[in-house]
Each structure stands twice: as C-alpha cells, then as structure tokens.
C-alpha cells in the first residue's frame, strides 16, 4: 500500500463512512439540541442576573458578581466532570446530557451577565434621568429606554461568546453523551478506523463554519465607529 492509499484508506474509507454516517447524523441532531438548550437558558439567565443587578441591592450584587466570576474562572470541563463524576458520590446522579447542559448553561450565563451588565452601564445617566422625569417607573425605564439601547451594543461580543461556548458541547462526549464527537469516537473504536472522526470533523465544520462567518459579519455590521 502506498502512503497515499494508506492515508485515504484511514481517513476517507468509504465503507466505514457509509456504516457510521447514520450515527454521526444522530449525533449532529443531539449536538444541535444541546447547543440550542444551552443558548436559550444561558442567555435568559444572564439577562435576568444583569437586570437584577441593576436594582443595586448590595448583598445580592456581591453574590451575582461572585457567581459570574466563579463560572468565568472555572474550565467548563471541570464543571462537567464535577457534576457528572462528583455528584454521584453524594448520591445524586445526573445524565451526561443534563450535566453538560447545566455546566455550559452556567458558563454562558456568567459571560452573558457580564456583557449585558456592561451594556446597561454604558447607557448614559442622562437617559435614566430623562426617562424617570417623564414619569416612567424604574422598571419601565429599564425595559423601554435602557435595555433596548444596551442590547444593541452587546450583540457582537455576545454572538462571539455564544459561539465559543456552544462549541464546548463537544465536551459532552467525555461524559458518554453520543453527540457528534461521542458517536465518532464510538465509531473509531468499533471499526478500528479513524474515518468516523473525519466525518465528525466535517459535521462540526458544517455546523459551525457558517456560524463563525455570521459572527464575523455581525461584528463588522454592528461595530461602533471609533
């Protein structure tokens, strides 16, 4: 076998690829679900924390800042491992899917809160004062005057951060979730051929390449002129 034949036989083996394609497709669907659930929950919780922080209750704010710092400093894989392998020692069993979802949701929540909060503080004080003087209440000012302005400038950093964190769904394979990488790993050990990994890499590129290009476009589209 020449070197080239060995290369194609290993990484582009049509027989193995055909056999494991359905598994990779299943993994693809699972990865998309996991990513969507993380995005919805993470962004919602992040916005909630940022809004709570706007009320300016000292002890609550310290708690929020600490939580945010905690989940920004811890590697996502450490949180996943702690939830999946650690909790059972205390008698609490989470499935790999739930552990991964919860861990990455908390991480996205932390980063999103930070970005939303920066957006809220970037709205000039005069906006608050003007809105309050027209008779709007605190919550109304926040909802109708401050947040719409704040959200617009948060879009570019938020998009990039969300993309980066949803790529972490591949970590779920470590806790036996049959996502794209999990299915590809299983395929490699059954067939003793790395072609399923090639398929997996292609699947991730199909999923994330357009998203990365979109993120780049959003960054220039919403960029603030300096």
């Amino acid at each position: 076998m020449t070197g080239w034949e060995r290369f194609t036989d290993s990484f582009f083996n049509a027989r193995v690829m055909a056999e494991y394609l359905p598994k990779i497709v299943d993994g693809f669907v699972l990865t998309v679900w996991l990513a969507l659930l993380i995005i919805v929950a993470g962004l919602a919780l992040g916005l909630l924390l940022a809004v709570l922080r706007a009320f300016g209750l000292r002890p609550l704010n310290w708690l929020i800042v600490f939580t945010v710092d905690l989940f920004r400093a811890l590697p996502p894989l450490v949180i996943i491992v702690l939830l999946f392998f650690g909790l059972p020692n205390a008698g609490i069993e989470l499935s790999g899917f739930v552990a991964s979802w919860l861990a990455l949701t908390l991480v996205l929540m932390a980063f999103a809160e930070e970005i939303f909060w920066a957006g809220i503080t970037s709205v000039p004080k005069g906006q608050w004062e003007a809105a309050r003087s027209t008779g709007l209440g605190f919550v109304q000012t926040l909802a109708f005057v401050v947040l719409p302005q704040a959200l617009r400038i948060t879009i570019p950093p938020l998009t990039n951060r969300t993309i980066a964190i949803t790529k972490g769904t591949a970590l779920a394979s470590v806790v036996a979730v049959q996502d794209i990488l999990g299915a590809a790993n299983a395929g490699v050990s059954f067939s003793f051929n790395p072609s399923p990994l090639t398929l997996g890499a292609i699947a991730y590129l199909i999923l994330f390449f357009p998203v990365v290009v979109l993120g780049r476009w959003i960054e220039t589209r919403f960029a603030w002129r300096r």
Partner: protein
Amino acid sequence: MDVFLETFLNWRIVQEAWPILWQGFQATLLLSALVVPLGLAGGVMIALLSTATTPWVRWPLRVWVDTFRALPPLVLLVFIFAGLPFIGLDVGAWGAVAIGFFLNTGAYYGEILRAGIESVPRGQIEAARSTGLTRGQAMAYIVLPQAVRNVLPDLISNTLEVVKLTSIASVVALPELLFQARQAQSVTYNATPIMAAAVAYFVLLWPVVRLLSRLENRQLAGRR
C-alpha cells in the same frame, strides 16, 4: 449537609491526594507556559500574513482561520491524538496538545492581532516609512506595539480561555490538574479531589477575571 461536606470538602482526602494534585497543578502550569507562547507565535504569523494585499494570501488565510475557529478544540485534539497514529504519526499526548493548541489558539490570537493592526491608522506606517524605517522595522517598532495595546483586553481574555482549555488535555491522558484529580477520585471514591482542582483553577484565575471585568466594562462603555 454532612454527606455533602464528607464527599466534597473532606480535609483528610485533600491531604491524602495532595501529592497527586500538586503534580497535576505543576503540569497545568507547564502546559500553559508551553501552549500560550505557541498560540501567540501562530497568531503573530497569521496577523502578519493577513496584512498582505494579494487575495491569494488573504482568502486561503481566512478559510484557515475560520476552519480552526469552527472546529471545537477537543475534536481537533482527539483527531490528532487518536486519528493520526493510524497513518503512523504518533505524536503522543504532549505533541498532540501542542499541535492542536497551535492551530486552534493561533487562529484566535491571529484574529485578535489582525484587528489590532487594522486599528492603527495608516498614517502611522506611512510616517514611519518616510523616516527611513523598512517595512519590517515599521511593523515591529511602530505598528505592533500600538496594535497590542489596542487589543490588550482581548489578548488577556483569550489567554485566560487558553489556560482554562488546557483541562481538555485530560481527555488524552496527559497528567494535568483535572486528570490527576480524576485519578485521585477513583482511588479515594470521593469527589473532594475534583473540588480541590476546581478551587485551584479558581484561585489561579480569579485575579485575571477581576482584571478583565474592569477592562471590558471600560472598553464597552467607551464605545459610545
């Protein structure tokens, strides 16, 4: 509550697992000291290449960067570690991590530095050239220092992510902090070592997070 303390914050277990954890912590520091400069070197190369005016360099470079930004780092690492040996290229855990991080973090650092270089006004390089500096000198002494300063928060933020990302090396059995903690857990049947590893990461990285939080707030607020 007692069960919780017993399984997650057990001082006896910490003492027992300490030597293993300490080895892991040192390996994590060593690993970071290896992959951060590697990624930066790759990033500088990408950023300099992206200043090229010919589309024959710019477009392939953009596809390269977006490819490695789109592939999850763990997928890249597993591919190198578990895939390449099938064609006789066995680079080992350290080698696989080094190559994977060079490709992945290089792309991220490259994007950041490119944005930095683009943020330096053209007049700067023209003025530098007109004083007799060569293109290379103007880049090294005039443009890059300003570019780095302009994107410093992003550079620090990315470095934080890279250090956190070294934890995925545990998947290819490189004995860094998380891997050692898992080992200690399987010996002691107790989750305290993993908790200890989490605390170690937090103590190591919290100051960086605090610093970044300040820088980012100022940056976003400054955009108005």
